[in-house]
């Protein structure tokens, strides 16, 4: 019986995915919720000397030293002051917990795969390689972030 309850993607060709959305600057971004480990608010970031510029520092995540990455710098946006709404979005990548510093957390969005369109080659001047797709809302667009690509960024110094 349990089998019947499970969605069968092959039948329809359409799957539904949930995305955690958040703001970086004016851009609404989304990350597949299965990649998100937790969202926390931690102001104690220890800066790391000689780290790449996109690394904000490290935090103590319950005994694990976790790198926090400034998404603004990765995406090439200007740095901003830390505000009260800043959050660390902890994602799990290659067995390691890594935090993204984001400006504000927004809703969780359930999208069917046919609601996602490929990202245009240029979005507000940001390279499209960071994005896996775009979804158009009534009020604007959600850009889906390619987590691995964002973490693979190198040498933006």
């Amino acid at each position, binding site marked *: 019986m349990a089998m019947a309850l499970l969605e069968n993607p092959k039948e329809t060709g359409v799957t539904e995915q949930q995305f955690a959305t958040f703001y970086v600057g004016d851009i609404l971004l989304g990350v597949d919720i299965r990649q998100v480990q937790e969202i926390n608010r931690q102001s104690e970031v*220890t*800066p*790391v*000397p*000689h780290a790449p510029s996109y690394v904000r520092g*490290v935090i103590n995540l319950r*005994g694990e*030293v976790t*790198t926090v990455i400034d998404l603004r710098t990765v995406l090439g946006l200007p740095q901003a002051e830390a505000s009260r709404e800043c959050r660390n979005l902890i994602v799990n990548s290659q067995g390691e917990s890594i935090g993204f510093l984001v400006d504000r957390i927004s809703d969780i969005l359930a999208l069917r795969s046919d609601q996602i369109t490929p990202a245009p080659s240029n979005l507000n001047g940001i390279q499209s390689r960071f994005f896996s797709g775009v979804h158009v809302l009534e009020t604007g667009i959600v850009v889906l972030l390619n987590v691995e690509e964002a973490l693979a960024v190198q040498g933006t110094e």
Partner: protein
Amino acid sequence: MSCDDDLVREFVVEANEHLGDVENQFLIIEEAGDNVDVNLVNEVFRAIHSIKGAAGFLGLTKVNDLAHSLENVLNMMRNLELKPNSQIVEVMLKSADRLLGLINDIENSNSADVTAFTVQLEKIANGAFSGGGAEPVSPDSVAVEASVSVAAKVDSMDDEIERAFAAKRAEAAQASAPVEAPEPKSVLAESPAPQVAEAAPEQANNPKKETAPAAASDTSIRVSVGVLDKLMNLAGELVLSRNQLMQAIASKDRSGLDTIASRLDQVTSEVQESIMQTRMQQIGTVFGKFPRIVRDLGNKLGKQCNLEITGKEVEVDKTIIEAIGDPLTHLIRNSMDHGIESPADRKKKNKPEHGTMHLKACYQAGKVRLEIEDDGAGIDPKKLREKAVSKGIITQDRADQMGDREAIRLIFHPGFSMAAKVTDVSGRGVGMDVVRTNIAKLGGTVDVDSVIGKGTKVIITLPLTLAIIPSLIVQCQQDRFAVPQVNIVELVRLRREELDKRVGRVQDAEVLRLRGKLLPLIRLNEVVEAPGSVQGGLENNAPEEQAINILVVDTGQQSFGLIVDSLHDSEEIVVKPLGRHLKTCPCLSGATILGDGHVALILDVAGIAQHEEIRCAEDLSKNTKKKSSPSDDEHLDEQHLLLFSNHAHEHFAVTMDVISRIDRIRAEQIDSVGGQELLQYRNTTMSLLRLENCITAKPAHAKDRLYVIVFEVAGKEVGLVAPDLEDIRDISTAIDMVTFRERGVMGSMVVGENTTRLVDLFELADIAHPEWREDEKPVAEQGEQPPRVLLAEDSNFFRKQVAEMMREKGYVVVDCEDGLLAWETLNSGQHEFDVIVTDIEMPNMNGFEFTDRVKQSKHWRHLPVIALTSLAGSADIQRGIEVGIDDYQIKMDRDKLLNSLHNFTGGKAGNNVRQLQTV
């Protein structure tokens, strides 16, 4: 597979154990040649036999077949029907490798092909292989045959791999595609292991076969039942302590909290210790594979080399065991390839045709020291300089300035290959620098020493464990950093007004004048900040700060001063790795979480030194030192002294060599029990001495905070109360031994403007606690001849001190002013000596020369030689061992010197005889 999985798994573990030693046993069998050690062969036979039995039972046919063939050959060997030679052993070794390969890939073992091995083994068993009469099959052709069959199989196998990787390869880079690789062997080496299960038959021919067993061994670890039991007990204790704590909190009874806290503290540290113990493994597990590597490389390169291994039993943390294998393998390959010469060359140079490589592990000052020494060609510093210049690594100027030793260290430079030509074995230009980086990652250091024509020695020092390290927490602006205690030599605090005097500039580099040496200075501020944001010198560094804190750190290759804003506590920190984005940070070796939950980064002092390029400054200080202190050669024994005062106008000194440590305490920590002062200390008590109670001295003023100089006497820790510490200095011993001489005071000298009395800590302890010495045994029984000591020491002061001390114990001492006089005394035949005690630095003939002569002579070489030094440097010790010095002792450490004497004279002689003879 139909059989029970648990049973199979057990079989794999057991078989790995059986085969673990087989490799080395084969090598010993090979070495023994015709003199077959039947017991050893039997041992191997039994191991293979049990594998065969179990494999048969479990239905592992191919394992069974191969083990059976191997067993046959061994059976003939132990019945002396077959004599082992290196061709036979070669086949057996490869078969054993194959067997191990099958066992570690047990799922697919039944579909593997082992006929190549069984056929060869059968041939041996049938006598077709042995050297009796004309050899039907020459070893060469066998080898060729083997490799041809391998190549053939590789071809067929390539298709499978190709299919398996088709998807992956589409995106992968060209280079990783297995088919393009130039030769069959490297195909196997590069193919990812899990997918090439079918490729396993050929892996036996692949020298890199150790991957499989290694993977098998790190999934589980052996822990002694004793340790487990202890852990279990401790867990019980922990629960008990928790219950007590909960009760105390529930009942709001705060009176017992102290006891509970200290109990918890103790249990926790014991748990920590025991858990660390479970992770400790013998380094022999790594060393085990090297005899085979040396042998195989020797065959391949046409060189002969014996590998001598000592210190297998040294235990280090599991993580280090796992990580040290590759660097060591690389170093051994290097030694074989570039170090050891071919037998013909060696003969020309009058060396034995067999080279010798010595692999050694030992503990040294809380670390592990590994040495790989060969007696090969050595490294030519001239060539290295030329090459470094031609490769643009350093400038010609720099090369000219470089000392030989530093030039040799160029091999650690990235992109530097020692080999004149690239060979299969080593020399691809990624060599020693990778070794160094890998070892630095473990918190260790590498150094190299080489003499042309004599050989090369690589010295690696490693921490015993990586997981928990004692560190000092320092602050720099807003952030705290941890500096591993092992890197810290001392802390220097400079007052503002001393700055100009102590800090100078040498060619744009800031240096600290410290006891006559110049030490390069680095400001942590500058290291950790983004370049450009730092301005100003020391003066602007911390305007409100009264004093400047300098950490004198040592990377093993150089030392420098690190200026920090402030110092916090010393803590045992748990090392946490940094994420992948931070792996490249040059000055950090990890992170830790402090008691308050904040993250502190761990500084890598070697990385800082490299980052700031302070090598030059080090050279400068060396040069300056040479110029400024020509007195180095005048054989003045410098004493490393701690200066302190008891009463405002009375100054004292003790020699640093005998001090275990210095503690700062509060006056209220001192308890007075029955007229004795005791200090509560880390759950034990320590006796305290006060100068005024032992010698003529004015009493100290009462102070809230005191220093305690801790030293060890008769196995106990004793503390001497020192209200005010003044300085630590190197002072040459111009000591007046008359004016202030009394029991407990060796003599006096003038330091600065103050008359300072040099205190003998051991005599102080004797005065205060004569009962501690009572149970000591006399050096000789009544009526026996007392042991005779020949003492060579140029400093009047030390000669008298040491001689007197030995005479007091009942030794007969003949003392001489230098090595030459001692040598003449020895040869005059007036006295028969039992032991020689000699200083190292002496005019006319130094201690090394003297020892060398003694050990080379026919008559005296049996005499034990104990060398005395002020501070034993490892280079000195090494040289001393080479000339045959039996033991090193620190001059002022009376207990240890007497112990050593006692050991060497075997307790012979009486304490009733006192003789005095001076030559």
